[in-house]
Structure formats: C-alpha cells, structure tokens
C-alpha cells in the first residue's frame, strides 16, 4: 500500500529526474542497455534488483528505448490484435519500478554510434553517454521476403503496435487477408484477424502448419480447429508473387502451382532477422546475430549482448525462455561488476568466476496464444526414421475434446513433448526435458501430468540403487548440475 503511494508521488517529476540522472551518469560511467524490449527491460530490472541489495557496489543503469513504449511484452501483441487484451496490459513492468530501482530510462531515443575504445555511445538526440558496461539488446526485425510486389500497399508484417493498429483496420472492415507463413506468429495473426472479422487464409510451405513445433497428429487437430474458426489453410503452398492492382494495392497472391488467391491485404510472418547493424558498424563480431560466448560477452571488452539479436554457437533465439536465461546469466556476470575492468572476452575463458552461471541453450518450448486453442511443444519432436525406432512415444488422446498429448522418450528421458488442447502441464514437461533426468520411476504416470508425478519419486523410488542416480548426473554432459543437486537434496 505504502509502495503505491510513493509511486504516485514520484511519478510527477519523472522527466526531470531522468534528465538529472542522465547528466549524472555521464560522469559516473555505468551500465548502459541499448534496447528496452523484453530482454533489455528485464535485464535492467533484474540487475537493479540484485544490486539494490548491495548499495555500496552499485553502478548506475541506463535503459535506452527506440520505441516510445518501454518494455512491453511483444508476444502479447497477438491477443491485442485479437482484441482479447488491451495494449496497456502488455507492459512487463510499471514505470515506477524503473524509478524505484534507480534505472534511468531514455525512451524514444536511438543510438547513433558506439565507441568501444572510449566506452561511450552517441544518441540521436545528441547526447553522449559513457559506459562501464554496455549491453546490446537490440532485438530483431520481422523478415520480409522480397516476393515480386512485396512493397505493395497492404503488405504488412506483424511486429509492433503500429502493425497491430493497421491490421485491425482491415479486419474491422471484413477484408480478405492472407498470412504467409504457418508458424506461431502467422497462425496467431490469422486467428486474431479472423476473430476481428477478416476472412483469412494461411499459406504454408510445409505439409502442415507449425511443422517445427508440432507433430502431425497435433497439427491435424490444430488445422481442424483453425478451419472451424474460419481460417483457411493452403499447405505445401509456395508463393510465386504478390499480385498488385493498378493503384499499387495488394489484390492477391499467386502460387507456384498456379493457383491464385484473392486478398485485400497480406501479412508476412516468415520469421525475424536480428538487428545487428549498430553492432556491425561498431566493430563487434557479427554473424547472423551478434556473436557471444556462454556468458554473453561479445567480441569487445565490456560489451555484452542478449536477446533476439545474438547468436551463440550458430544458434539464434526467438523465444522468451532462453532470453530470460540469457538475462539471468548476464546478471550473474555483472551483478558485482565494479569499476574493475572486465578482461574476459570470447576465446579467453581462463578465469571464469565461480558464481557466473553460463548460458546453456536448452530445448525450446512453444505456446500458442490463441484463446481457446492451446498447443504446446518442447524439445525434440521430429526424428529421422532411424532415430524414430529408438524413440518411445506416450500418447494421450481425448477425441471428443481434441486433446492430444505426445511425449517423446529416449533412454528413459523425456526429450520432447507436444500437447494439444490441454497444455497445463507444458511447463512441467519442458522442465523435465531441460533437466534431462531419468524418468523411469514416473514413466507410467508421466502422461497424466505433474499431479501424478511426484518428482521426489525420481530418486526416492530408486533408493535401493541410489548410485545410479548420482551416476547419471555425473556422466551426462548436458545435465543441469544445480537442478540435479536440488533434486537429490529434496530426496534426502
């Protein structure tokens, strides 16, 4: 209660405070975060929270946001488009939280250049900021495939609030739309627009939608559900060209098989491209994304990168969970970074402090955000024929309710999960996949979900053969030692 009172009191002079702090900051080089998306804003808050416990050692934090809206949850844009959620509800943190934690937020400002030698950056409003530590959280941009006429009026991506506003207009007029790309975002957009009144068709290259995330039975259920919701599907469909009328407006789409589909607008949902221009121009090593090591260091000292803009061991990250993990890793790296200069860079990992938690890429899970339609997947769910023989599947089906769960097991470990209809146990399964534990003792009830699987059984049930439990933890290179240790502790 008293907290909210003080928030209300401090909000009045936010602007002046910000400027005061910014100039203050120039003198005392601190931690500067470029990008206030989900990664940047979360990192700012998490680091400040960690630091606030130890006032003596703190460095000032500055969060720079290109968009005027700071720290909203981009993945919630689909519900916003569907009209299920108000945009205001997508903010991750209240403004006052930044203030309370002493974070300087510079909103609607872009970074022009970075001088990694002087450790300073130049903003497009002319300001220059020194930094002790710089965090690149520049995110990504929706990918646009340059089909013929891709610049026609009515061709959109679905990335930010502006896109939402534009697309909603079409829907409310009951226009006909096409979504290129049957991935999560494309399906969410199609459903949202259909729900808002548009007549939608999804064009997908593969044999079934969400082919990276779902197995065939789940995808079939999903496709049936999409059809029930008035979203048409064209699978195994390859776009030839976008058709444009004389006014330069979209009027349809032609496929390589010769089909023509009419459309008033087209949403391209074919993935994202990391925003790396600034990094590249600043001399950071960039491949598809900004190259980082296990502790989020870029190739430059005191410059770090997190979020969708990074690339680690050739892998890009577009999901919330790994981004959060990266944030957590970087917090361990920087939480007691004092004035002392950082010498650890890529290829020089000789002195990794004990408390640093390295970022480990884990199997990803997916959750579809369309109301009344839930699909979830995690881990590995596609196998070549040879691998398929060694994979055990546990399937649950309730045909009338269209519930489908499929768990993929290998050597008594959960390696993948697809849930359709009832996804309430998704996080439980993805945790099991991440933890990579032997589930022999709970295998018979695993398919029934967390309520039936007492995790302490994993060790308790095997008490007579305790040494086995310890062994698997030690020998498996992918295992999360901390988690395993916790499990053992719980059991004892």
């Amino acid at each position, binding site marked *: 209660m008293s907290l909210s009172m003080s928030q209300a009191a401090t909000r009045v002079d936010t602007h002046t405070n910000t400027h005061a702090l910014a100039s203050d900051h120039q003198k005392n080089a601190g931690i500067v975060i470029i990008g206030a998306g989900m990664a940047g804003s979360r990192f700012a808050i998490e680091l400040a929270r960690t630091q606030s416990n130890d006032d003596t050692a703190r460095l000032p934090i500055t969060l720079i946001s290109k968009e005027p809206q700071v720290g909203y949850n981009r993945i919630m844009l689909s519900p916003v488009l569907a009209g299920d959620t108000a945009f205001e509800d997508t903010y991750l943190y209240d403004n006052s939280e930044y203030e309370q934690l002493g974070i300087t937020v510079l909103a609607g400002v872009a970074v022009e250049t970075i001088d990694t030698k002087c450790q300073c950056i130049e903003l497009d409003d002319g300001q220059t900021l020194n930094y002790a530590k710089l965090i690149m959280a520049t995110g990504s941009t929706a990918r646009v495939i340059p089909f013929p006429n891709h610049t026609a009026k009515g061709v959109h991506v679905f990335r930010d609030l502006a896109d939402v506003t534009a697309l909603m207009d079409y829907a409310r007029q009951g226009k006909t739309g096409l979504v290129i790309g049957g991935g999560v975002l494309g399906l969410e957009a199609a459903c949202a627009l259909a729900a808002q009144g548009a007549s939608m068709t999804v064009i997908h290259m593969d044999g079934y939608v969400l082919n990276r995330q779902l197995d065939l039975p789940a995808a079939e259920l999903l496709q049936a559900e999409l059809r029930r919701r008035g979203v048409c599907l064209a699978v195994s469909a390859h776009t030839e060209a976008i058709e444009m009328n004389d006014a330069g407006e979209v009027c349809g789409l032609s496929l390589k098989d010769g089909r023509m589909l009419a459309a008033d607008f087209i949403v391209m949902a074919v993935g994202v491209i990391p925003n790396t221009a600034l990094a590249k121009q600043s001399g950071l090593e960039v491949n598809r994304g900004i190259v980082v090591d296990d502790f989020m260091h870029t190739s430059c000292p005191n410059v770090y990168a997190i979020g969708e803009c990074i690339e680690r061991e050739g892998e890009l990250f577009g999901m919330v969970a790994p981004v959060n993990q990266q944030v957590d890793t970087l917090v361990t790296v920087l939480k007691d970074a004092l004035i002392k200069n950082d010498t650890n860079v890529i290829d020089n990992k000789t002195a990794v402090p004990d408390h640093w938690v390295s970022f480990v890429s884990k199997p990803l899970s997916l959750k579809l955000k369309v109301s009344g339609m839930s699909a979830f997947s995690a881990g590995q769910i596609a196998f070549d024929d040879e691998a398929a023989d060694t994979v*055990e*599947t546990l399937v*649950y*089906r309730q045909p009338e*309710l269209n519930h489908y769960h499929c768990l993929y097991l290998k050597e008594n470990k959960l390696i993948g999960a697809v849930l359709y209809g009832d996804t309430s146990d998704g996080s439980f399964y993805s945790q099991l996949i991440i933890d990579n534990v032997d589930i022999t003792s709970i295998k018979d009830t695993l398919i029934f*979900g967390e309520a039936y699987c007492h995790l302490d059984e994993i060790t308790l049930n095997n008490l007579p053969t305790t040494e086995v439990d310890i062994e698997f933890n030690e020998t498996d290179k992918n295992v999360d030692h901390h988690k395993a240790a916790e499990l053992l502790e719980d059991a004892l």
Partner: protein
Amino acid sequence: MNDAIANESAASKVVSANKSNGLPNSVQKATDCVIETHDISAAKNIKKALTSSDGDLIDSSIDSSITTIRTTCPYCGVGCGVLASVNETEVLSVKGDPEHPANFGKLCSKGSALAQTLGTARRLTEPYYQNKQAVMKQHQPMQLGNDFNAIDVSDKPLINQTDWDTVLDDVASRLNDTIAKHGRDSIMFYVSGQLLTEDYYVANKFIKGFIGNNNIDSNSRLCMSSAVAGHKRAFGADLVPGNYEDLEACDLLVLVGSNMAWCHPILFGRFLAAKKANPNKKLIVIDPRRTDSCEFADLHLPIAAGTDTHLYNGLLHYLDQQGCQDDEYVNQSLGVDDAVNAAKAWSIDKVAHACQVSADSIRQFYECVAATDKTVTAFSMGVNQSQSGTDKVNAITNTHLFTGRVGKVGASPFSLTGQPNAMGGREVGALANLLAAHLELDNADHRQLVADFWQSPQPISPNVGVKACDAAAAILDGRIKAIWIMATNPVVSLPDADNFRQALAACDLVIVSDCSVDSDTVKCADIVLPAQGWGEKSGTVTNSERRISRQRTLMPAAGLAKPDWWILSQVATRMGLTGFDYQHPSEIFNEHVALTADGNTHSHRTSHSNKNYPRYLNLSKDLSALMTDEVPADKPAQQYISQHINQNGNQIHQPIVLSQQAYEEMLPFQWGGTRISMIDKIKPLENEIINSAATITKSQLIAITPSNEASVANVHRYQSRQKPQLIVDNRTPSKHEVEYDTQSENEVFHVRLITGRLRDQWHTMTRTGLASQLNQHQPVPTLTIHPNDARQLGVQDNDFVQLHRRYENYGKYESYENGVTNNGIVIDIAMSTARDGNEPASTVMAQVAISDTLRVGDAFMPMHWSNAFASFARVGPLIPTVVDPHSGQPELKNSAISVTSVPMQSFGKILVHPEWQDAVIVQLRTILANFSAQSSEKELSETKCEAHSNNILPEALPALTWSLSHQNNSVLINLASPMVEASSTLACPEFWQQFMASMQSLSQPNCQERVMHTAFTVDNVQNQLRFIVTQSAPETDSNNAAINSGSSDDERPSTQLIMAIYVAPTQKQLPSVRWLDSCFTDTSQIPVNQRYKWLLAGRPASGYVDPGPLVCSCMSVGKNTILNAITQHGCISATAVGKQCRAGTNCGSCVGQINALIAECGPLAQA
C-alpha cells in the same frame, strides 16, 4: 397357474402357543416364540414378532412394508438359519438367525453376502430353445474337434424364445418319443444338492417310478457318496451318528481331508469357541495342505494325498495295541477281527513311510486319539473325493466303532456334507443306486413297496442306474438319448469335463433347468428352462446333522422362472402320467413324509403291516405333533399316509398330513431325534430285524487293505483296447505322446493336482461370483505350488502356467485294473468308446501362487472356475475319471498333471459396466479365435522341429486368457496374452474404438439419450494402452454437440464410466480397481477438467489411499487397512485388529490370514 392357486390358500394366522405341546425336543425348543405369517406379494412368509437376542432386528413398525423372513442358507451342508429383511420386491439384507440351531445367529462370508447375489442380474428368466452346436462353438475358447466343425451351424439363430406351455408340451412329447424309440432306459436325470427335497422327490419319483429306470444321479455323487457308502457298510444304513453339538462337546477334533475353516466356517467357529472356553480341547488336522484350518491346530499331519487309509489302519492297530477297545461295542459289531488283522501290518514306521510324514508326528496323533475318549473325527471331500473314498470312511469309522466312540456326546465320526441339501437327496433317494426314503434299491420288497406307494405303472427297475461319472460314456455309446440336467453345472464339475461336454454335444436331447446364465452347462442345452433360485423357491433342506429346515420364498421370481418341482410335475403330467398334480410344495413334502413312514415299524400308524422295513428316517414320527387328521377338501387323500394303509388292510381311513400352514411354519428339526445313539438303538431294531427279515444289520468294521500305490496320482490313460487297432492302422503316436516324449524334464514339470474350494466362492460361482466382496479374496484362477517347485519351474508369484493332462499307456498300470471292481471296469470299457485320443483337450491356465502350505510336488487349484468366469481355468478337463468302486465317487484331489510356464507378453484389466460384460467377452473371444486360426495356419507352415526346439506348445497356447470378477458397480476382466501380435491388438486404441462404434450402433435407440466419450493413452514401444469410455447425460441442445468441443463435456458433471481398459507389459503397471469401480456410479468427485486423466491414471492425482486386496469379506476390510492397524495402532492380536478395523469380527474365516499378517509385520511395528 398352479402357483396362483397355491398362494391363494395361504392365510395369515397366528400359531397358538399350545401347538408346540408334544413336539420333539428340537421342534418344541424353537417354537417357544410366537410366529405369525403374512402374505407378501406372491409368497407366504414368517415374520418373527419378538426382537432377536442381539436386539438388532429391523423394526417392522418403522416401515410396515419391511418384513423379516426366516429361511436357510443355500451354500454348504451346515445349513445355517438366515433372517432376511424383505420389502415387497426384494431382499434388503440378511443376517444369521440367532435361533437356528446350526449357527445361532452367525453367518460366514458367503452367507452374509446372500442379498447381493439376488435379483435379475445374470438370471435365466424365460424358457428358450438353443442352437446348441452354434452356442457351444461360440463358447468353446479353443477349436472343437473335427466332427463338431463339420456341422453347419451358421444359418440358425442361437436362441429361440418360447413360452412355458409350448416348451413343456414339447419336452413331454419328446421324452415320450425317446422312450418309444429307444426304450425306457434312454433317459437320464442329473440333479443336484441345490435342489430342495421336494424337487428332488419329484425328480426321483418321476424317473424311477414312471419313466421306469434308475438313471438319476446327483452332483452329490461328487460330494458325499463315499460317506453314504461307508455309512451303509458300517451302520447298515445311511445314518449320521453325530451332530453339531458333538463338535463342541468333544475333547479332540480330528479333521481329515477338510478345510473346515473355509468350507464349513460357522461349524468350525462353534468348535473354536468351545476350544477358546476350554483350551484343553485339541485340534488335529490331517490334510496334505496346510490349510487355514491348521492355523488353530495343535498338530497338522501333512500326509501324502490318498494315504488316509494307511494312517487309519495304523491307528486301529495302535488302538488295539493300547487296549482301547470298547468291549460292549466290539461285541455287537461284525468284522472286528478281520479289520484288526488287516491293520496289524501297519506299524507306525510303516505308516510314516507310506504317508510321508514323521513317525513322531504320527505317534503323537495316535497317542492323542488313544487318550481321548471324546474324539470327533470330521471328514469331508479330502476323504470322499477319492478312488478309495469309501475305504477311507470305513477306516475312520473302524477306529470309532472299535473304541465305542459312536453316536455318543462328543464322540463320533462325522461327515461334513458339502451341499445345502445333499442329505435331502439321500433321504428321497435321488441317486442311481438308492431307492427312496432310505429303502434299498437292490431289495425287491422295498422296490415293490415304493412302486405301490407311487402307484407306478410298472415295477421299479432293479438295475443301478447310470451314475454321474458314467453319464458321458452312456451318452456317447448311445444308451442315453435324452438327459435333463437340473441345478448343476457338470460341464465344469465332472472329471474329464470336456468328455462330458462332448457327450452333451452329441446327445439327441439336452434339457437344462437352471437359474443362472453363467452355467457352462446351459450353453450345451437344446432346451433351457428357467428355474427359481434361492429366495424365490420354497421347500425344505436337510443339513449335515440331519436337521430339516425350511427355505422360504423371499421375493417374487425373476421373469418366468418356476420351481423345479413344478417344471418336473408339468412335464410328467403332460406325458400322461398321474400322481404329479401337485399345487404346493407342502403336498410333496407330505407325500415324502408318508413314504418315510410307509412300512417303517417306527411308524405308529403302520404297525400291522405285514412287512416292516424299519429305518431311522421316519418323518411322520418326527413331525407327529404337527400332523393333523384333516385333509384339505380339494385334495384326494390317496397320497397321504392313510393311502397305503387302505391298500394293504382294513384300516380305518385316517389321513395324517401336515397342514400347509404347519408346513409354512415348520421350524428346524432333526429327524430320528437329536441323536442317533448307535448302540442303544441297534438293540431294539435287531429284534425286529429277526422278525421281519429286514436288512438292517449290526454295525460292522470293514477290513481295509489299502493299495501300495494309494498315493500315486491318477493319469489319463490311453485305451489298451484300442491298441491292436492302432498297430493295424499303423497310426503315428498321438500328438500328446510326441509332445511329452520330446519335452525335456526342465520345461515340463510334473505335479499332483489337488482341487478344492476357496473361502469365498461356492461351486461354479454362478451365485457367489455375483457378490463383489466374495470375488476379492482370490480374484483370478491360481495354481498354488511349493516354493521349491516354483524355483525348479522358474516361475514367480502371479506368473502364468499352463496345466496339461498327463497320459500314460494303459498297459503300464495293469496293476490298477486288478484293484478295480467290476463296476470300475465297466466304466473303463465305456470310456474307451468315448475316447479315441483325438479329442481336443481344453487348455487350462492359471497364475502361480507360491506357498509352503503345500507339499513339494503337490499343486492346488480351485474347483470353482468355469468358462463363464475364466477363459481357461476349468479344472475338470485335467482330471481323469477314476472312481471309488463302492460309491462311484470320482477322485478329484489326486490327478497327475504337468505344468509349463507361459511367458506373457502383456497383461490387462478391463473394467466394464455389467451391461457390456457379454459384449466385451465376445470381443475377446474374437481375438482368441482370430489368433488361434492364425497360429494354426502358421503351425502348418513351420516345421514341427522348430516348435519343439522352443519347447513350447504353439497349438495349445491360446492368444489370450482372461478371468472376470464382479465388482460393486462393474465387472473386472483380468487378461494376459503370451502372443506379441495379440498384445498389439489389445493395445491398439483403434481396436477398441471399433468396438465402441459397434456398441453404439447396437444401442441406436439410446444413442440420442446418451453421449459416449473416449479417451486413451498409448505407448508405442511397450504396447501399453489405457482406454476409457464415459457416458454423459443427454445434450439438451443437440446441435452444439461436438462443435464447441472444449467445453461441452467438461461442463457436464453427470458423466458415468462405462468401460476402462488397461493393457501393459507387466502386471505392476496396471492400476488397482477399487477407486475406478466407484466411478461406475459416480464421477462427481473428479474435477471436471481432470476427469479423463484421473480415469486413465486409475486413481485421483493425490490423497487416495488404496485399501488393498480384500482380506475380510464380511466386513470389507482390505490388507492395507489391516496392516495399518498392526503397524500404526500396535494391534498384535487378531482381536485387537478386529477392534481397530472390524476385520475378522464376523465369520472369522480370515483370522488365519490376519494372524499371518501380524506375524509378518507385528515385529516390525514393535521394532
């Protein structure tokens, strides 16, 4: 129609107290209370006006429609009194009758569950014609023989419903035709100890007096015919010298071949109570198995099966040596010297060697008997069901006669009969070698007397009729053309049961009257007649101590079911026979009473008759106080006692009858008085015997010369008489010979098969199988073997084994033939025509139960399982027909079999709504038939060598085996499959979805009312499947049925579970069923969004403690609950456990098990 008349005449009256004056003690004692009768629906009942001793009687004043009726339990021979609380349509509850002299208010687990077995479930309710061949083929799990398949059965319907009038006329004319075409001897009745005395009487009169042959035998042939034969040899008549009080009065009770704790629990409880009051009383148990009865024994002699005669010869010798003889008795007895001389050879050491127990324990036993004058030796099926059963009975009786311990208080041999009315059957003579009313079939005068009494159209045949074990041969060799089977299930219970089944298939006319659809024998009938069951029918039964009690009607009959006496009388009348116009069972009883008095010098009415045939059985004497001189106006007097007097002399017409009212109110009484004291009664009888030249003789000791091979288990034999043919034909040895010659000893394990009862089941489970709590004790067919044998066989608890008949060449056992009397040889000749070595032997499978309660080399399998309850657990086909030469009783407890282990690929449990039970079984049979056909095709292509190198028997191993047990709300089917392909089919959701679809299409009228839902989980690698079917209340708006899928079912709370299928590679992976069973009535305790997961998991997600397998059936207490009482509440005695959780507090038959649990876990708890 006759019923209606009978019932109209029933009037409500109060019996005046002075009626009881002059009654025999036993009757008088019980009539001290006022009894009044009421009309309730179609029945007349007795209501007890006084509160019972424990004050727990349902107070009829609360609800005037609830009445308490006194009746008698239909299970074992103890014959316990039952008080049934009934309303107008059903029996609400039962409890023990505190005033019945058999049980004084106690009931065992089976009796306590009687109310659960009533109703219309699994009942035959109307008469029908059956396409026997087709139905048998459908119900035979394995392929039948070639002849059988040749019959084209495809186009006829399986069943044709009919009405009583048509079917009775038809039966009558077909029986007449059969007589005309094939002679009087071509008809046989096979009756049962479940019939009431009145039914029995009519059946016996019908065939012996009117059809004109003695081809009537009872399933009592399998029960106590050795006791009858032994009694007749020893006492000259079928007398029971002891009674129940002797068990309490004795100082030593010796149980021989009886697991009394399980099979006669209430009587055993009476002894235990007396032993508790006086711990000096001793209990010695003689049984190859260490049964639960041994729990309370001071000494257990686990003698080798079949060696009882050795043991008792040795005892007689010992008693002689110790000078224990009772001179008075011995002087009055015949054959003493012979018997003692024959026993002389049997020293303790020799006995110990023969019986395979220690000489010390035998000496201990002998010393105890010698020292205890008040010794009761109670024996049961372990004695009777033996090829030397009669000798066993006499060996036991010899020791009692020699010491004068007969018919005295606390000292007597005592036969525990297995069936509710085995004794009644003996009284009316419904066995092939008995006449009626304890008269002798081989006595021409007796036959004449009975024929005159019945006014038979022709003399009664002097020839012993076809006995139970000869029936198959008699049918197969064409002597019997029509058989009428009543209230018994010989396709399950007879030895060589498959042979009997084949015989029924071949028989021109098979009529079966029964009350249950779950009788395998019903499936072999051409004509099925629905008989009334317990609670519907009305009449009398006689228990093991000669006590006659009434079974009374408690509720209206199911469907069109009729009493057996009515069915028989109707057919007889329609055949043109006179003397069967009975309207009421009391008329039959009166006639039976009159016949027991007829020519009986004890009858005060017939003293001037020229010929006297004195017998103890004289019901007119016992009931004289209740008799009236008045004959109902509408009935001719001829059938009553006066009738015979008029024919034979110039007596005044003075009919003596029991009025219908007196019959209805009749209380339990012992015929011959409370005690037949052999020595006192023999003296007066003796004089009369001399005068009348009748056949009653002195009591006699029988010299017993037991065979040296008494303990050798019986094998199935190839027929030596066919051997020359075989050689001429140059036929290859039969399949079995090849198999067993090539089997190595490791894989085929030889054991001796002992059969017997389970605690909570009765006969072929048609009744007890309906009560869920009675199915908990041993829910699946088991074969119990010793741990050593299990180790050698390489099996563990619950593993599956296949049981095989063992064959020997006839010639090898030529010595057997020497020991077999003429009777026995006749059987063997008859059997030879029946068997050509190619008949298909039923597969028998069971799950191993390892227990050191058995001797090494012995195996025990319950007798109860039938095709209706298990696919391959009928034990009968394994048992060779070897009968006692004197009694014709088959040896059921000493069969040579071999056992092979059957590795199962997968196991399953199916819980199904009772309405779907038959459909699921048909579905399982389909799998079985498909894969059997496939495997036999496969077998043709594969070389024999391969099959043999694997040492499996592919042609005999079924693709699937199952057993079912009724739960409270559902039917549980346990199944297992040794075949990968069959396992995959079982674990295939599509297979069950098809089944669902077919069920839905069958019930189209209901389709709109109910919505079915399925859910399943499946594991591709393990062949694991969980599949449930639920049914929800009708959708109010049918349009949105499946469209709004997410919510429609979830929001409906009234979902009911219809079927739940679980298939897994190990039994451990299958859920327990208690909680699931409760979901068949109600799933409201499940959160709607969790519904399918809970049901598929087979348990709630948390907070559920399974009570475990049921230990106490009466109080429904599970093992886990008892363990909790022991470990958590420190209960270290059965009494303490009972106080804590009520286990073992009713019949007490589970106390042994509770004590074992205490012994196992008590120390742990204390530590």
